[in-house]
């Protein structure tokens, strides 16, 4: 009974996700995109980086990347802490 309610709720949330995603704008037509046009224009001009994505990852949004390296480091710390060599009982 409870499970059926949850599944119905999940279907509703999934439908809402479809709705939200669908109502943003038509696929392939971003309309005005000032931020991305700025990146595309200035990545090569100011930074001499041919690859715009890399210049975003490491320069324009570099702080995201260090956060992301920190996420990887966090997961590593957590996993190694979970599988650590335990101290034997004193």
């Amino acid at each position, binding site marked *: 009974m409870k499970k059926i309610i949850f599944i119905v709720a*999940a279907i509703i949330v999934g*439908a809402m996700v*479809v709705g939200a995603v669908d109502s943003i704008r038509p696929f*392939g037509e*971003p309309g005005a995109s000032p931020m991305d046009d700025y990146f*595309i224009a200035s990545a090569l001009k100011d930074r001499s980086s041919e690859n*715009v*994505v890399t210049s975003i990852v490491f320069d324009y949004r570099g702080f995201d990347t260090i956060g992301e390296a920190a996420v990887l480091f966090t997961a590593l710390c957590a996993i190694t802490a979970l599988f650590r060599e335990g101290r034997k009982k004193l």
Partner: protein
Amino acid sequence: MIGNAPFFVVGVLFLMGLVSLFLSKNLIKIAIAISIIGSAVNIFLVSLGYRAGGTIPVHFLAGEGSTMVLPTPQAMTLTAIVIALATTALLLSLIMLVWRHYGTLDIDEIRRLRG
């Protein structure tokens, strides 16, 4: 023309993952469901950046004067992929330890903490 098909597929994948969180009993299947939800979100982000007729956001390969697809969602997706990998690895480690302690992967039997 394919219309909004990628967005629709994203929603369908999300729905499938979310529903099978409740339908499947095995913890590893639940980890797979969470992976699929994460991939759905990644596809959503990348398809947000697609511009009809756009080229790869690399000046070297795109050539002069061509319109490129939006690069920001791709940068976001790179981050999101690594985050998804990190959480998947941690979730599977936890599942291994659950198996070690409880001797089962049935999600309905992991209920030592209640009330």
